[in-house]
């Protein structure tokens, strides 16, 4: 629907990534290690073996979902910071259905995933509803709901449904709820790719997607056009939360094997970085999540081989986020190399 400058929307994140890696290299150098060796080890750890690849894909999977959740909400002009809370509820509900229900795998797996989706969706939908009913800004409500989610899920894991033993976690899910892997490729990853395509299709090829984007770009025009703006806001938040919740469910069913709060820490928040790196393009979420997933996956190898603290990864990620968000820095760099005529229109008044 929108026709942005394609080249730029790819070039800017790419340059941001390269610059972040470069600055990271300088920091590694200053801290007394060899950046080439460090990045080499990082790559080796992330892609050097079947096990490494499997781990990279596994780490990328929830990131695709949480990135997609943020990117999707953004299309309606909504900033869903609550991916973490929605993901936690998705993981929890899938964990409960996974162990408490007995069904054949063909039903059990989708039922648990669906439960996680609905849980995340409803939780985000609540923020949407609060926005349309009371004008409460979604940034505030989703952040607050993150705290509530983390406390509620902690309580459940440590209280009524706690597994035997001292660790605060739910019992293991039944085998019939476990998402298997196909060779080194986790089923969850494949699902994530499919969901990316469905999301892109929904946004660009359906009337609902047209409504969502219109509300995001010009709510006044959406109202004029007879669209139900409030309903669209709630629906968008619901779908966004559904995506995050699905990520949580798949984490439970495909990786952790049960609901255990600590395993999900931060996954929802990384979604913001990934959506920004992807310039909120659904397809862009895949490489962005793979990149972040690979860095996390290779971090321990880097620490082991090159004696570089894994925290450097967070520094590099932070730099990437900074550089894509403050993309004027990069625009200026590109322009300096003679790219003309891509300047944004500065005056937008009618008559101009």
């Amino acid at each position: 629907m929108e026709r942005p400058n394609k080249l730029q929307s790819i070039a800017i994140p790419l340059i941001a990534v390269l610059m972040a890696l470069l600055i990271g290299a300088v920091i590694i150098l200053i801290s007394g290690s060899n950046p080439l060796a460090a990045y080499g080890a990082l790559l080796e750890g992330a892609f050097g073996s079947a096990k490494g690849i499997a781990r990279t894909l596994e780490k990328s999977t929830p990131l695709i979902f949480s990135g997609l959740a943020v990117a999707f909400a953004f299309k309606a002009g909504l900033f869903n910071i609550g991916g973490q809370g929605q993901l936690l509820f998705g993981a929890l509900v899938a964990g409960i259905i996974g162990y408490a229900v007995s069904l054949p795998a063909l039903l059990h797996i989708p039922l648990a995933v669906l439960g996680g989706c609905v849980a995340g969706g409803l939780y985000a939908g609540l923020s949407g509803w609060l926005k349309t009913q009371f004008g409460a800004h979604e940034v505030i409500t989703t952040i607050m709901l993150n705290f509530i989610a983390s406390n509620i899920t902690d309580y459940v894991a440590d209280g009524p449904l706690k597994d035997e033993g001292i660790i605060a976690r739910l019992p293991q899910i039944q085998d019939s709820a476990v998402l298997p892997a196909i060779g080194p490729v986790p089923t969850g990853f494949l699902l994530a790719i499919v969901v990316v395509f469905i999301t892109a299709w929904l946004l660009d090829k359906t009337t609902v997607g047209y409504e969502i984007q219109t509300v995001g770009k010009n709510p006044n025009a959406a109202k004029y056009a007879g669209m139900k703006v409030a309903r669209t806001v709630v629906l968008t938040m619901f779908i966004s939360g559904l995506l995050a919740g699905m990520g949580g469910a798949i984490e439970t069913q495909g990786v952790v094997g049960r609901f255990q709060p600590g395993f999900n820490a931060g996954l929802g928040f990384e979604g913001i970085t990934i959506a920004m790196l992807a310039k909120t393009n659904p397809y862009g979420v895949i490489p962005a999540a793979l990149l972040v997933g690979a860095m996390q996956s290779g971090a321990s190898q880097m620490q082991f081989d090159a004696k570089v603290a894994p925290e450097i990864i967070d520094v590099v990620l932070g730099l990437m986020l900074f550089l894509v968000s403050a993309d004027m820095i990069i625009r200026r760099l590109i322009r300096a190399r003679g790219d003309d005529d891509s300047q944004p229109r500065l005056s937008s008044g009618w008559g101009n």
Partner: protein
Amino acid sequence: MNKTPILELRGITKQFPGVLANDNIDLTLYQGEIHALLGENGAGKSTLMNILYGLYEPTRGEILVDGKRLALGSPSDAIAAGIGMVHQHFMLVPPFTVTENVILGNEETGAAGRLNTRTAAKQITEISQRYNLEVDPYAIVGDLPVGVQQRVEIIKLLYRNADILIFDEPTAVLTPQEADELVAIMRELVAQGKSIIFITHKLREVLEVADRITVIRRGRMIGSTTPAEADQNKLAEMMVGRAVHLELDKGKATPGETVLAVENLTVNNELAQTAVDDVSFVLREGEVLGLAGVQGNGQTELVEAITGLRRVVRGTITVAGQKATNQSPRKITEMGTAHIPEDRQKHGLVLSYGIDDNLILNTYYQAPFSRAGQRQAQAIQQNAEVLVEKFDVRTPNATAAASTLSGGNQQKVIIARELNRPIKLLIANQPTRGVDVGSIEFIHSQILAQRQAGTAVLLASTELDEILQLSDRIAVMYSGKIMAIVDANKTSKEALGLLMAGVSE
């Protein structure tokens, strides 16, 4: 008049992807003159001015200010050379005071970086006295009427010692009274040695105020003339390249059944004050009811209530026999209503969408544009191609973003969308704002064609000429009430003017 060129544009050429917006344009501005720049929508006027102001870099050409070459593509160099521009859309910060807005980007600070607003305010008072630009330096800009905000923009330029002032369609958003005041201000400015480039589509204003007139068409310079040598018809012909019928023969109205009935309607504005006060009228098939009045007397709120965009406090609205009071815009549209909104960028368009997606803004969910919830790309594109052709939207292609269209062509996209489906009621609010004479002729003929086809038309406009030309009956609004509904053939501008001022016989 002093005959030294203060500004010379030489061979300015600007190539946008697919559009040659300016093609080898030469323009000379003499010190102390008002130079009007005329041309159709999309002719390249704003582009040329944006180049002069440094917002765009030209593909070719040079600019001389006082005989010295100006560095191109840099607003700060243009400002330093004494060039200032009042954009159509004001670049003001509404919550700031007049003084804060004027000094923004040019702040003088005292010890420890403290803003020194007092001396600035004094300077502003001096400027406003010197040029007759009455404004309170401590007023909050957001509270000021549009005409006064525009004065703030002008003061901003003068505060920066601009000698060459560019006005891009400054009168398009002004009421006729405000426009007259602006004309007086422009005269005062040139009397004191400033030079002005003035863009407008209102030929009357051009003849009234310009010293010289330059016409461009499709990016090329067509010629220069003076008000003494030209009249409205000649100017229109130079702009469009053919004779334009400024007067329309609309034929007799044959009103049929009632389409729109408004009874005892009361509507509030944003501040919960009564904006429409107990208004009643009917509108029949095949007639045009003009809604005249000084801007801000309830016309906007009335139109928004009828189209479902604003809540009705009391009273009823009936469209084609169906209850339309407080119905959703979608329902009202489906009753057969089309709405050309007053503010095309706020309500009428999604600027980042292509023309094609804008043309389906309120029919996107129906066949043939949607089937089983899926967008039908081919139907959407075909529709766009047909309408772009039929309504003469000047664009390289039907998928270009609406933001790349010139103002008048944006308006044509909306008109095309609203008039291209079967309708019973057309609500047109300022349908020709910012539109060139050729397109005005076209839009007016389209509105009259709707009337001929039996559509009921409610036409709100602050242009009395437009109201008088198109309407069968005219309702005059003042302070939220309808002062009178008069027969368009039996009234005059003067009589309407009195009613608009709240004087009834």
